[in-house]
């Protein structure tokens, strides 16, 4: 019997004078000591459903539905009141733990204030309770940490503090909205482990919201899949993983890299927003396994990095007491032409600094980088133009990397004008349109402004803009991290196709092991400015040598390790064991 459920939830928001539905007829329920996962892409209504449970929809929303808690029905309009009066013991944690804490107050005081004002506890007693709670969520030295400010703690620690704060409300159900999305994968595993502890130790039920189907199906007991404002399927994680009933679910799995052999085509979920769910392909066609390209060592070396070093030095006044961040600390690797080298690492490991070295944005302080056998220093000595033509970049922020006041066609053409001045205007325009078609867009997109395009379309424009100058090398720094899984599938498919057609050399940087595993011929693992391990993709993935790589791979949630030939374990156990 369910502890908490929500029935027939409808939420609408007024947009330009019309009510637009955000969720339609949603039914969700979570049992005692259960973790319910809600998974869906952006706009699927997963967050709106949670906010309505907490009474956080905001004054403009029109909501109807019933919440049933412990055998008692509560109208959705009354949940805030019921929660405030303690008859609906829910608490919520959010995606951005650091932003969720008041920056000018200590962690401890933000927890202690609850006891002071709810229970009338003395300040000292409340502080002691706060310290106890911090201890119970696995924060080491809780007394010292209680006196710290949010900016002095890591994201993972802040999320623990947020959980402690939520626990202060003595909730029976904890709603966690993308609680690990902003965190590194090893930290994600630790937070998941903590949440599981809360269930087993404190008897709390959890509603866990995520966009990551792999994470949800490996961590939660039961999963509800949401799509365009409705729940399309609810089943145990096991059942969802083994035999998804709904076509959207199976399509979503097929869109995640790691569920199909490396280099094979990923499922692209139709994007026309008006199509009913039934319009999805009945059964996604089995992918055609493509021969996995070998290391292709016969090819000439396109990128060669030898002992590259880049340190950031923070100089205080009068040159004394310097603080050095070793972003890139003696890295060497080489990439054969026409292959992809994938770099995996967590935030702060120096992978983006490495990218900036490769595009010539910064010069290495020591060591060498050569492109097609020529040293970067020599190439840059003749000016940036020639270098920029051969090495192009696709950045993570598809919106920020574009000029918002200019249509996308001229932005693509701009580089063309610089590098091929002898082409006529008509010819350049033709080139741009051909390139737009090559990335799956068309002439109609030439005169569109960036804000008129979707995220996936913008990232395609970014790829078109990079490729228009016919580069040999494409540096992709987290090219799909800001995109939904189904859009990510489109972009990855595009990159694979372009590499085949144009014989591109790709350096792919990502925090997502699944993406790197799907796209790369060779893989390097970075930690604190050092490449701790590198080699052919299949070897690194199936038999990681360095302890850091092992913990990183083990922490990655995936239900498709078979394709990496990593020994299969119970996934929940793996998450628990992943603590470094």
């Amino acid at each position: 019997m369910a502890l908490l459920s929500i029935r027939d939830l409808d939420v609408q928001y007024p947009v330009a004078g019309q009510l637009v539905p955000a969720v339609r007829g949603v039914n969700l329920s979570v049992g005692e000591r259960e973790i319910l996962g809600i998974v869906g892409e952006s706009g699927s209504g997963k967050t709106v459903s949670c906010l309505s449970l907490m009474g956080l929809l905001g004054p403009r929303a029109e909501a109807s539905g019933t919440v049933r808690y412990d055998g008692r029905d509560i109208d959705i309009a009354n949940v805030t009141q019921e929660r405030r009066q303690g008859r609906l013991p829910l608490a919520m944690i959010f995606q951005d733990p650091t932003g969720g804490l008041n920056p000018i107050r200590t962690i401890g005081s933000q927890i202690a204030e609850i006891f002071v004002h709810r229970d009338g506890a003395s300040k000292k007693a409340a502080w002691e309770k706060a310290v106890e709670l911090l201890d119970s969520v696995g924060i080491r030295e809780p007394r010292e940490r209680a006196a710290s400010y949010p900016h002095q703690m890591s994201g993972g620690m802040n999320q623990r503090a947020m959980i402690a704060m939520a626990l202060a409300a003595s909730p029976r159900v904890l709603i966690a909205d993308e609680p690990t999305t902003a965190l590194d994968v090893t930290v994600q595993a630790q937070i998941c482990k903590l949440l599981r502890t809360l269930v087993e130790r404190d008897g709390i039920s959890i509603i866990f919201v995520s966009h990551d189907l792999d994470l949800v199906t490996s961590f939660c007991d039961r999963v509800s899949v949401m799509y365009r404002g409705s729940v399309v399927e609810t089943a145990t994680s096991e059942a969802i993983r083994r035999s998804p009933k709904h076509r959207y679910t199976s399509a979503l799995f097929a869109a995640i890299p790691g569920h199909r052999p490396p280099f094979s085509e990923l499922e692209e979920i139709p994007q026309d927003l008006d199509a009913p769910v039934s319009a999805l392909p009945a059964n996604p066609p089995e992918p055609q396994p493509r021969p996995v390209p070998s290391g292709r060592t016969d090819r000439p070396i396109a990128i060669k990095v030898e002992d590259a070093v880049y340190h950031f030095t923070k100089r205080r006044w009068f040159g004394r007491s310097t603080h050095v961040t070793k972003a890139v600390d003696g890295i060497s690797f080489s990439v054969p032409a026409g292959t992809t080298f994938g770099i995996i690492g967590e935030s702060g490991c120096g992978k983006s600094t490495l990218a900036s070295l490769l595009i010539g944005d910064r010069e290495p302080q020591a060591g060498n980088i050569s492109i097609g056998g020529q040293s970067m220093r020599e190439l840059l000595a003749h000016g940036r133009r020639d270098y920029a033509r051969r090495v192009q970049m696709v950045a993570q922020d598809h919106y920020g990397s574009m000029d918002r006041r200019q249509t996308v066609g001229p932005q693509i053409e701009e580089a063309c004008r610089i590098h091929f001045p002898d082409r006529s205007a008509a010819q350049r325009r033709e080139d741009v349109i051909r390139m737009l078609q090559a990335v799956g867009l068309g002439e109609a997109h030439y005169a569109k402004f960036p804000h008129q395009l979707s995220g996936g379309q913008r990232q395609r424009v970014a790829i078109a803009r990079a490729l228009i100058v016919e580069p040999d090398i494409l540096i992709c720094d987290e090219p799909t991290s800001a995109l939904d899984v189904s859009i990510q599938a489109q972009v990855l498919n595009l990159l694979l196709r372009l590499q085949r057609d144009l014989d591109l050399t790709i350096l792919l940087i990502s925090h997502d092991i699944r993406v790197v595993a799907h796209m790369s011929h060779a893989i390097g693992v970075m930690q604190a400015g050092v490449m701790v391990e590198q080699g052919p993709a299949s070897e690194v993935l199936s038999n990681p040598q360095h302890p850091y790589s092992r913990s990183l791979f083990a922490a990655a949630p995936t239900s498709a390790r078979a394709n990496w030939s990593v020994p299969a374990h119970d996934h929940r156990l793996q998450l628990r064991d992943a603590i470094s």
Partner: protein
Amino acid sequence: MTRAVLIAFARLFITVLLAVTFVFIILRVSGDPARALLPLDAPEEQIEAVRAEWDLDKPLPQQYLTYILKLASGDFGLSMNDRQPALQVVAEKIPATVLLMGTGLVIAFTVGSALGLIAASFRGRAPDRLIMSLAIFVHSIPSFLFGILLILLFAVALRLLPSGGGPSPLHLLMPAAVIGLSQAGVVARFVRSSTLEVLAQPYITVAGLKPLPRWYFIRAHVLPGSALPLLTLFGFSLGGIIAGAAIVESVFAWPGVGRFLVFSVARRDVAVVQTIVVLVATMMAFANLMTDLLYAFFDPRVRTS
């Protein structure tokens, strides 16, 4: 931390030195003080005599050096007008100006903060629009015009308040209102936008979920964040108020430093003008230093970095 304070003081010293130098140059290239001091038909010998007496016949670098050295030893020179020590004549006028500016600041920040908070809580609705229109109005109307309007209304038509003079509480009301209200407009806009910004922060959502009384929630989570930017504004508006004081004091015949400055500039009383500018510059630089230190005191993110 101590290093940061030392650097701040060094910066303060440089600011004051620059201001002093600037005034020294301006006053000497904009006309001959000796001629301004004497009647138009004064004989050439008398002018030369005055020049010699005030060192005005020495080369400029020498005048500058003497001046700086004297300043450093606390000697601000003699007022050319009545041969009293300039520092003393100016000091006599300071209390009246401090009273006026202080009252103006209090009005600006209390009225402005209150209106800003009201506007923020009624965002987009009638009270918000009314307050924001008023804020622009009071700030854009020139203070001499505002002052004259008040005089016409309260002194001439209603005969409630004295039109000028002072210093007394009754005399203080109108000039302080002119100074305070025009700055209150800026404060209100600032408080409104910083409050709205804070209210949109995720930590406000999180804090709103806790079982906290409304007053405590506002006092502990909303106000501190929305009041922090006021520190910056305080440093800025002090400058505006000092500049405004010269005009307002003249309009209301308030016996303060501002009116005295206008008077002394007209008379080319070099020593007095220099004294006032040094004092004002020191105070401004000091106010900015205080702003920085207060930031460090109130904002842990600044304190620890």
